[in-house]
């Protein structure tokens, strides 16, 4: 929001000229260079109305090296991966994949919005899979609220109870038999997002 006396200008020295290239390497394709800023992504996006920057603006900022703004933005965390933008884009920009890449970069650098539930859920999900090979929705949600907003847990408990009584909530997490194999596999991947997204 507007603050009295805060300057609204960007000096070239504040930009990261390599940022776009880093993002391109992370995404695995250079399609964001094709963007003509038409806004189709933002208008087809079902959640752009909740973003701090529309996807179009995020692409514009990423291309020009607005490193801090892009990595601190809520926009990628609001993205629900519905792929509408990717499908509708007239220039075939892989926007959803770009959002994934920004999320990974923000996580790697630890600059993702703190206590914001989406990255917390992502982390929790990651750990559950590593532990059991499968995820348990009940635990995911419980952990999520414990780590972000315990009050919401109480609010959500009604649904939880209903799920439990209709047999839709497993209390004991399922675990795969060959978890060692899975862990070996995950360990063997030279990972942490250095790879390339595809769509």
């Amino acid at each position, binding site marked *: 929001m507007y603050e009295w006396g805060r300057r609204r200008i960007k000096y070239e020295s504040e930009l990261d000229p390599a940022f776009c290239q880093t993002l391109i390497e992370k995404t695995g394709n250079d399609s964001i260079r094709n963007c003509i800023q038409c806004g189709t992504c933002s208008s087809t996006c079902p959640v752009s109305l909740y973003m701090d920057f529309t996807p179009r603006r995020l692409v514009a900022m990423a291309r020009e090296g607005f490193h801090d703004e892009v990595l601190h933005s809520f926009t990628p965390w609001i993205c629900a991966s519905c792929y509408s933008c990717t499908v509708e884009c007239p220039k075939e920009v892989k926007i959803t994949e770009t959002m*994934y890449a920004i999320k990974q970069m923000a996580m790697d650098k630890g600059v993702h919005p703190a206590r914001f*539930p989406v990255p917390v859920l992502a982390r929790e*999900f*990651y750990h559950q899979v590593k532990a059991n090979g499968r995820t*348990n929705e009940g635990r995911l949600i419980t952990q999520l609220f414990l780590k972000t907003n315990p009050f919401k847990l109480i609010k959500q408990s009604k*649904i939880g109870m209903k799920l439990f009584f209709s047999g839709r909530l497993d209390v004991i997490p399922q675990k795969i038999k060959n978890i060692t194999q899975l862990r070996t596999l*995950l360990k063997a991947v030279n*990972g942490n997002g250095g790879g*390339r997204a595809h769509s």
Partner: protein
Amino acid sequence: MTYLYYPGCSLKGTGKAYDESLLAVMKKLGVEQQEIDDWNCCGATAYMAVDQDRAYALASRNLALAEAQGRPNGKPVEVLTPCNACYLVLLKAQKRLEEDALGKRKLAGALESAGLNYEGKVSVRHPLDIFVNELGLDALKEKTVNPLNGLKVACYYGCQIVRPYSTFDDQYDPVAMDQVLEAMGAETLKWPLKTRCCGGSMTGTIPEVGMRLSFIILKEAKKRGADVIATACPLCQFNLECYQNEMREEFGEAVDIPVVYFSQLMGKAMGLSDRELGMQRLFVPFAVPAASK
């Protein structure tokens, strides 16, 4: 053809009724299936946000397991994936293994060190694809004993079975589910929100946003006179069904409408019992209205 069934985590939890009804329907239709032994989580959208390469590795293990399990019968291996998110993640992993030489090398190496191997012989199919394109609508008509006459269904496809890839249906206006349910006597709605996002995991993370997305879909289906919404994804079904009370509180407008799996409606038309179809698990009870028989 015996399909290798990949239910995914949600079908063992909140989406149990999808699992139950789909298996019951397939059995009745004579579609043989076998669950992939010791399958793991596909990684979904959450994992992809943390670590892309490992996300692909997760999916690839399932493909490798399926191939190993299905190959001995000498036929091409087809993995049946009812969950939208699993469907897309497996497809994405497959594309990466097929089209990206570097990605393939990385994954193949990792699979090998875990004692796995994937040759790329698996095709990933959605049950709707099987019903329409393998079994055919005539076979479905034949098995219909209680046609869904007069029932107005809003078919809701969700995102990830049509986007970003359109493998078996029109991307903008998919029709497979409509065709299946129409073949079984139902009337389906022409409406523009068939593939609009339900909010995905956001109903959990940012409920104000997630619920609003689901609310828009429910409201529009109701406004257009739907008796029930049919879904093909466990998360869509959960979002659309389970938050209806909360939505009423949040938005001050009742949007009570049953939300079921398309396979549950198929089962009803085929004369299967409510138990077999997991109907008791619904938050908003649904029964085919008498008038529609």
